[in-house]
């Protein structure tokens, strides 16, 4: 803990913290520290660690096996690299091909401190922007390393044939992204994630051909196997035959992506889940900052109760579009073109005159919610509320001409038109914030190793690099940094202890892991209740969005925890899963995922309850300045909340143990944000 100076008495459960909102919902635990990051100047730490990490003799690598769960940027890149190094790798994904991992959907771009534009960028500036973007809640050593290896990523991807945008001279083009002042974002039109992932996927498939990697597609990890305190394998279900399989290895890596789907509606793919990381959490891996969620302001609003997912539109739209809602509720159902200028409230321009429509993601998102909560939202009424605000290009079209607007945003306008059936050149677009990314994830040390030895976590699944809010174009960077350049170095230090003794499939820990999976499936197949899995998921999502979304309050979170617990109990008793477990069964797959989302949702609310500060993307109602802006409490909350799973048998619910990792900044100074 940083030195705590406050004259307020601190609760014994939470030294350093004025508040203890979550008292009764958790148990305080020992502080936790990252033991792997070397000391010394920040710019030397990664080199030192790489040097100190022990090497594995090439002849021994064939005898060492790695299980890699996930084939997104973080997983595919690591599997390929470890395969190239000569380890035996098994790669898992739930889709029918590794190429379909959700990284494919990223649009905007990837940051790298190449300074090709000679505009003052540097490793240090990227580091600084990322820490600041994360509202000083990330670990500085990790972020610095991320900025350092960012340049290698671009080299690697270009060599693989990733078709980044280029200038006429044949060199790579860059753009500025996410409100930073330098142009350091590399992009491939609006499909950067796709192109990067295909590069990593191809590298992976090359290793399949070389015989070092075996891919298991349509396989879902349902349990982690921990033998003698070490991660030694997974239990997976073959989603086609229903077979429950045991896969054993010397080390397990989770690169299973984010859990934004706990909100039911998000920009994540339908299958994104927390099961892989949650099962590891239940087996002892700490979950860090689970409540840190990123909410993106420019998504296409919900059109009805049938809505299954939300679609993101690039933030760049805010450069030229003006955001408004009607001043009068009565106007909300009118054709927006008939609402005169004086009856429109350009609320961002009004509240934040200097930044206007370009305020950061979290502010834009929260104000949109406020407008709709006031009853001034527009668009279809879904469950009694209109959730949408206008993003109007009439001015831009007037000023620049339709062609110029079409040039810049044509593909986004087309996408919008396809989904909504409305022509954005004629009628203002409607947008609404949506869950987009989670900064929280399994706690890892500098080596990306979790609290379970032999269990490594990379990409969105870990927590380490983005603090309380993620800078645009840095998730792709993190996924590839972890996979290509960090994990392959740190994992060898662990593998250097090998070859390891093989685990017998009849080992009690293996048998027990397998049995728990079989029991759970058996349960789902026999409840035969009355409600579908989706209906539970949707209801859970509504609770999360309402109480643990953009704005949180103590009362709301407590209410949410009660609601979640009640709904979860009902789910276990009353869910209806038809068909058989011995074939492809999508309801069964969803049931397992939703079961874990319930537990995660509960923990997210507890974490949010404890964190009585507004930081990053989260606004805590109880922590605001006089004019209603977010108020951070560095003196109290400059820590990572790492939660250890624990059940309170009497309560029949989780009562997790909170371990705090202090965040200290040596290379950067903490500052409050201001956008007024």
């Amino acid at each position, binding site marked *: 803990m940083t030195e705590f100076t406050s004259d307020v008495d601190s609760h014994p459960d939470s030294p350093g913290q004025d508040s203890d909102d979550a008292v009764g919902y958790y148990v305080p635990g020992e502080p936790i520290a990252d033991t792997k990051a070397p000391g010394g100047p920040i710019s030397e730490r990664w080199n030192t660690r790489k040097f100190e990490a022990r090497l594995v003799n090439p002849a021994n690598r064939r005898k060492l096996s790695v299980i890699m769960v996930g084939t997104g940027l973080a997983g595919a890149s690591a599997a*390929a*690299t470890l395969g*190239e190094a000569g380890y035996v790798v098994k790669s898992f994904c739930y*889709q*029918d*091909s*590794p*190429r*379909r991992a*959700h990284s494919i*959907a990223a649009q905007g771009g990837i940051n790298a401190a190449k300074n090709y534009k000679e505009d003052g960028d540097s490793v240090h500036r990227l580091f600084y922007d990322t820490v600041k973007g994360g509202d000083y809640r990330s670990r500085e050593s990790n972020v610095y390393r991320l900025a350092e290896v960012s340049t290698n990523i671009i*080299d690697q991807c270009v*060599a*693989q*044939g990733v*078709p*980044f945008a*280029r*200038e*006429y*001279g*044949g*060199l*790579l083009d860059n753009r500025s992204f996410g409100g930073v002042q330098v142009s350091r974002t590399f992009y*491939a*039109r609006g*499909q950067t994630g*796709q*192109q990067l992932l*295909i590069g990593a*996927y*191809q*590298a992976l*498939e090359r290793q399949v051909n070389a015989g070092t990697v075996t891919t298991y597609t349509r396989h879902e990890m349902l349990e982690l196997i921990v033998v003698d305190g070490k991660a030694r394998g997974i239990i997976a279900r073959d989603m086609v035959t229903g077979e429950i399989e045991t896969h054993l290895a010397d080390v397990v890596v989770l690169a299973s992506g984010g859990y934004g789907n706990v909100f039911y509606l998000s*920009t994540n*793919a*339908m299958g994104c889940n927390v099961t892989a990381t949650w099962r590891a959490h239940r087996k002892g891996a700490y979950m860090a900052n689970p409540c840190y969620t990123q909410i993106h302001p420019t998504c296409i609003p919900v*059109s009805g109760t*049938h809505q299954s997912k939300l*679609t993101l539109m690039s933030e760049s739209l805010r450069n030229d579009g003006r955001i408004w809602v009607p001043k009068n509720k009565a106007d909300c159902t009118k054709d927006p073109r008939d609402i005169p200028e004086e009856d429109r409230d350009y609320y961002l321009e009004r509240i934040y005159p200097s930044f206007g429509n370009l305020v950061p993601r979290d502010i834009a998102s929260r104000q949109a919610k406020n407008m709709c909560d006031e009853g001034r939202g*527009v*668009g*279809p*009424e879904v469950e009694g509320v209109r959730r949408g605000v206008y993003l109007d290009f009439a001015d831009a079209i007037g000023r620049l001409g339709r062609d110029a607007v079409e040039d810049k945003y044509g593909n986004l306008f087309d996408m919008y038109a*396809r*989904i909504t*059936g*409305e*022509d954005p050149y004629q*009628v203002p677009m409607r947008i609404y914030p949506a869950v987009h990314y989670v900064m929280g994830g399994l706690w890892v040390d500098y080596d990306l190793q979790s609290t379970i030895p032999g269990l490594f976590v990379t990409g969105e699944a870990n927590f380490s690099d983005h603090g309380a809010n993620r800078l645009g174009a840095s998730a792709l960077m993190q996924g590839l940094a972890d996979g*290509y*350049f960090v994990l392959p170095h740190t994992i060898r230090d662990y593998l250097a202890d090998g070859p390891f003794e093989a685990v017998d499939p009849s080992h009690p820990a293996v048998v027990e892991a397998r049995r728990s999976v079989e029991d759970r499936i058996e349960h789902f197949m026999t409840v035969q209740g009355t409600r*579908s899995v*989706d*209906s539970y998921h949707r209801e859970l999502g509504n609770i999360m969005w309402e109480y643990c979304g953009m704005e949180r309050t103590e009362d709301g979170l407590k209410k949410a925890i009660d609601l979640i617990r009640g709904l979860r109990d009902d789910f276990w008793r009353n869910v*209806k899963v*038809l*068909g058989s477990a011995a*074939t*492809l069964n999508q309801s069964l797959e969803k049931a397992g995922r939703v079961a874990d989302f319930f537990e995660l949702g509960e923990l997210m609310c507890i974490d949010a309850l404890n964190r009585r500060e507004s930081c990053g993307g989260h606004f805590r109602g109880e922590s605001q300045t006089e004019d209603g802006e977010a108020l951070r409490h560095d003196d109290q909350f400059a820590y990572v909340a790492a939660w250890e799973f624990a059940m309170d048998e009497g309560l029949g619910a989780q009562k997790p143990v909170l371990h705090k990792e202090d965040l200290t900044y040596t290379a950067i100074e903490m500052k409050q944000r201001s956008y007024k």
Partner: protein
Amino acid sequence: MTATAGTESDTTSDGMKLTLKIWRQANPETPGAMHTFHLEGVSPDMSFLEMLDVLNEQLNAEGEEPIAFDSDCREGICGMCGLMINGQAHGPEVTTTCQLHMRTFSDGDEITIEPWRADAFPVLKDLCVDRSSFDRIIQQGGYVSVNTGSAPEAHSIQVPKDAADRAFDVATCIGCGACVAACPNGSASLFMGAKITHLGELPQGQAERDARVVNMVGQHDHEGFGGCTNIGECTAACPKEIPLDVISQLNKDLRTAMRHGH
């Protein structure tokens, strides 16, 4: 597309009524058959897959097992979805199944929904097929062999903008398999040509160019895909509008490799 603001609320009482004829098949070994379902209250704002979600909710409530179909991103980029809708791959519009919306259909329509049909894409269940043959084609050379860490500085490779743009255009293939589904010969030439052209346009892809095309085509044939007769149904069905050029390029690369004795 209409120019009205979407003030419609999601009513299920006065939506469209549809008759759906859907292929159902329990598993890869059991023969399947078409089944007829009736669905009411379909909103024109629903995506095609959301319409099927609603049908599945209804089936689940009635005690009938929901229909299995694949999807993941539901925004037209992952390539997981793919249905034959009224005889057209991904339906009547140039987009993916997940981005097809019900406003394309009318009240009272009968819609036939089948899985992709190709022996190289065996049906796993209902509307889900196994497209791992595509992965194996890529395994045979759809990459540049460069180990992590061995790459030169990115700016040491200059790529003319035209080449970079063309490489990008064809690299947007999402591997959905619609080209195979639509092809009267069940050929995967468009998919393969897209990869050959993507890597062939770039300096990085030259070293392995001959071996790549020969091995990929070898795997394509081995998987049981048909030969191309340049009819063009693939391009018409492709949601990413990959042009027929890529097949020409594929053929040319193979011819060149032949000349080089591969």
